[in-house]
């Protein structure tokens, strides 16, 4: 198949009856890129993928592949490969037949077909001799996954779509397959669009991550961008900024903001918020931080908070400590430390000003309903 130079989705939207699943989706992908659509269930990421595949018609918008519109071409003629979440292997066909199914549709000569079947199965490390005659039901979950990928790759599609391909595998297999998918992508240079709700999968695999929320794109960026500079509280929440601290704006110093917690502690913070900050003294905002960046040992020199140790949990690299803030026990923060600490003992911890991120207070609980998307960030 022809290699992709550029894939564009312009203003793509899709409704189901009165419910709109996808709003004005715009994305430009260069050939050979690995793009992830990331978001919780119901955020429209699978809808976007199915629109791209041709399995769903667009309500509005267009899809342009190498300057040719493809959104009116039926799925079976788009030359796009797709791996399904539940693999969708043909239960009545053996491994070889499952792989050659697509090749037969393109009326390939037998010799070429045999070569491709072997090549595709080799690529996913399924031995043709050992597994060729087995039915899908006689394969393990991981082998079924490999077969599903081989079946799609055999056609050498211009574009590969993967719909949560690892979500049915156990943790160990998942990380193995993740590495294999990454290797395969590097080896073949296939332009790939990958749908997942797992941020670590998206981070480790992608060149570009598209964070979605209630049918809309929330942020597009490289994994580093998204991880370090989330442009909304929603993305921050998704990227593991689970510590939240309500604070009041006291002033601004260069790129840093001076804020005060409701217990009177002064902190320095920054923001990666994409919207208009325009915060004035006395405004209430929320400060968020990742547990691994809010540390007790080694203790940062400035920007410190005090609390009482409530729980200690060893997470491998460090101890994760649940701390109740002094003078306001309602606020619980997760803090990392190289040293274990005693329960109910006081603990001092801190965070670098550029890793304590400020966002407008926002309701992000109901990310599943499309209505949530129309809620403007609330400034209080």
């Amino acid at each position, binding site marked *: 198949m022809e290699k992709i130079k550029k894939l564009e989705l312009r203003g793509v939207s899709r409704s189901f009856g009165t419910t709109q699943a996808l709003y004005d989706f715009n994305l430009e992908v260069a050939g050979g890129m690995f793009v992830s659509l990331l978001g919780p269930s119901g955020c429209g990421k699978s809808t976007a993928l199915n629109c791209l*595949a*041709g*399995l769903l018609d667009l309500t509005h918008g267009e899809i342009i592949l190498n300057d040719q519109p493809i959104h009116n071409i*039926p*799925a*079976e*003629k788009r*030359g*796009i*490969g*797709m791996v*399904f*979440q*539940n*693999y*969708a*292997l*043909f*239960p*009545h066909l053996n491994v070889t037949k499952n792989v050659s*199914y*697509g090749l037969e*549709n*393109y009326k390939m000569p037998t010799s070429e077909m045999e070569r491709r079947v072997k090549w595709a199965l080799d690529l996913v490390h399924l031995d043709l001799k050992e597994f060729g005659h*087995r*039915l*899908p*039901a*006689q*394969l*393990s*979950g991981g082998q*079924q996954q490999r077969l599903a990928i081989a*079946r*799609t790759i055999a*056609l050498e599609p211009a574009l590969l779509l993967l719909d949560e391909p690892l979500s*049915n595998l156990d943790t160990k297999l998942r990380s193995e397959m993740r590495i294999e998918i990454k290797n395969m992508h590097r080896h073949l240079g296939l332009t790939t669009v990958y749908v997942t709700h797992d941020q670590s999968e998206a981070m480790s695999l992608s060149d570009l991550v598209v964070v979605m929320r209630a049918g809309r794109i929330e942020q597009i960026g490289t994994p580093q961008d998204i991880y370090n500079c989330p442009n909304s509280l929603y993305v921050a929440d998704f990227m593991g900024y689970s510590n939240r601290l309500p604070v009041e704006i006291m002033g601004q110093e260069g790129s840093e903001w001076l804020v005060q917690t409701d217990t009177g502690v002064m902190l320095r913070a920054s923001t990666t918020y994409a919207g208009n900050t325009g915060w004035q003294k006395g405004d209430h905002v929320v400060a968020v931080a990742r547990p691994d960046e809010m540390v007790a040992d080694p203790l940062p020199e400035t920007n410190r908070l005090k609390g009482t140790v409530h729980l200690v949990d060893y997470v491998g690299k460090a101890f994760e400590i649940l701390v109740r803030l002094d003078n306001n026990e309602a606020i619980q923060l997760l803090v990392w430390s190289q040293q274990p600490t005693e329960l109910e003992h006081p603990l001092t911890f801190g965070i670098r000003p550029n890793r304590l991120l400020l966002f407008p207070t926002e309701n992000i609980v109901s990310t599943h309903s499309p209505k949530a998307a129309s809620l403007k960030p609330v400034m209080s």
Partner: protein
Amino acid sequence: MVNTSIGAGTIVAAEPRRRINWGIVLLCLPALAFVVAMFVIPFLFGLNLSLHPGNSLDAVGDLSFANYLQFFNDPGQSDSVWITFQVALPVTVFSILISIPLAYYMRRGIRLERFITTLLILPLTLGNVMVAQSMLLYYGRQGWFNQALQALHIIKDPLPLVHSWWGVEIALFIQNFPFVFLMILGYMSGISPDLERASRMLGASAWRTFWKVIWPLILPGVAIAFCLNFVANFTVFPSAVMVGRPDDQTKVLSVVAFRAAYELQNPSLGTAIAFVMGIIEFVVVSAVLYARSRMTRTSVLGGGKGV
């Protein structure tokens, strides 16, 4: 999806030496007694009776195949085998052929599905005699159907839709089609829609997807539906008498057996004819199931984790 059967290569752990679980044996006894009393004994009684020609129900005299020979040597009786096939096969094949596209169309659910299903099930609740009686009124020479067609000048003379082969075909279709349809619909809607999507993504048209994916997966269901429906149609009796022509066009085996037993007062011969009927059904069902097993090696609808 639920795993409906285990693939051929599944490894089964070696079982420890079997011990008889008397509790389970006891639990099975009532059902077993019922089957023996209600089926096995009458079956053996009938078999014995058919092998003792004569007018007595006591099965006296020597074992003999005279009844069977008499049936096959009398063309007036044995031609009913062919007649029964002519009655049973077309309506069975027709029901299957109608069901498959209809079920394909309805496989993802359609509007008014519940209403349509109810409409289909309704004839099942009516019973053969009621359907036949209604048909006599509706499809008869003076019935609404013929009157309407005549009024519209589509036909000149009334169509012989009752007291004919057609009458039996229509009656059997009304009574047995719902079974066939619902069964095939069940198989069809049990196939994951992702298989069809996957097939499209691999470049197959809807037509090719049907023949390469859906058809092999519903084939077991079609075979079973065919067998059940064929047996039901092959044993037709009330309809053959009431809306058919039991003297020639619809002189099916059950009619011949009935006449032998109750008009010729020869229950032994009647039983023998019933056994001929049973054997033919058995042969047909076996042939269909054998053909099915040759066509697809497996009957799995789902295959293991996540398929």
